[in-house]
């Protein structure tokens, strides 16, 4: 489910969704705002698959597990890499 497979399209894999979410977190967002932004982003491109809220949350779990996002004071933020 993290990587695409023969029957799991690339844009439905958690890796792809994670990347998409990170892009959308160019600024801090609430969970609902991020969910809304993801749907708007996908609507703009016809070829993109629809994903459910459950799958969106799994995408967030994936990013959180990798340690690349934080959730504080009600906002999701990209964790900046240490220089």
């Amino acid at each position: 489910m993290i990587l695409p497979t023969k029957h799991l399209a690339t844009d439905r894999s958690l890796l792809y969704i994670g990347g998409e979410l990170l892009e959308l977190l160019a600024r801090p967002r609430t969970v609902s705002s991020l969910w809304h932004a993801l749907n708007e982003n996908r609507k703009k491109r016809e070829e993109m698959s629809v994903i459910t809220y459950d799958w969106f949350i799994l995408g967030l779990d994936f990013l959180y597990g990798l340690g690349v996002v934080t959730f504080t004071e009600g906002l999701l933020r990209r964790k900046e890499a240490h220089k």
Partner: protein
Amino acid sequence: MDAHTQAFYRLKFQNTFLRLKGNGFQELFGDIMSRRYPGDFVRTRPWGAHGDRKNDGYLRSERTLFQVYAPNEMSASETVKKIEADFAGALPHWKDFFAIWVFAHNAMDGLGPDVLQCLLDLGRRNSDISVRQWGYEALEECVLALRQQDLEAVLGYAPDARAVNNVRSADLIKVLETIAQTDVAAGSDIKPVSVDKINKNSLSDDSVHYIRMGQRKSSLVRGIFNSFTDPLRAERIVQSFRTKYMDLKLQGLTSDRMLSELIRFTGGYSEGKSGPVEAQRHEAAVAATLAFLFESCDIFEDPKTGEEV
């Protein structure tokens, strides 16, 4: 009858022949012969204390008496005993009416030497009676001589070109939902589809026809997979199919037989009570599903790179 329909009936007959035993096989034999020789073939059935008097069917015009035998497992000694008992049991009742005695059986790969010897000895000891055996090939010949309406009565409705053209997403979704789903981890390598896969697997012309028929609509299946709200549902369906294939492979079945069993596993060869149009579309949807899964799954063998097939 188009080539796809014929191929479907040959595949279905083979599957039915292999599946049915005992009374079920005898029923099939009677159905085929009654339609092949209407008004000429007479079915018999046990009648109270008299039983069937060792008569499982009589073809009047040929003065031929049939004895049908379709055990779960055919052992040489039991079969020889059966032949001798049935022939001896038929003589007192039917001797004046038959010149040919046929032992009709369900051994797909032919009879063993002991059984053949028994039949030959029987013929030698009864020179006025021709003793014969009918196996798969003889019965298939009768089936293929049936008119389409009789084939439909015996083996159900087959998809034709029009039914395949009329397959819609809703038909495919119904088929996909019948495939058992198991919880398995996702993950198969993304492999390109092998163009020569059909040729590599020694599939008969009938099987090839069946798959090529399904390929006309197999692309619809990909669209349905991508539309599932649960992204892993497609992988679960495919894995169930893959597991079934491996199970069949371990049984040492031929490629044709595996395909036939996979058709049944996918919901094909249905004997439901739906009308002809619905039944044909359902079989066409099964063929499309199977063609898609054949192209994209890790089932059957892929030719090696550069291999000439």
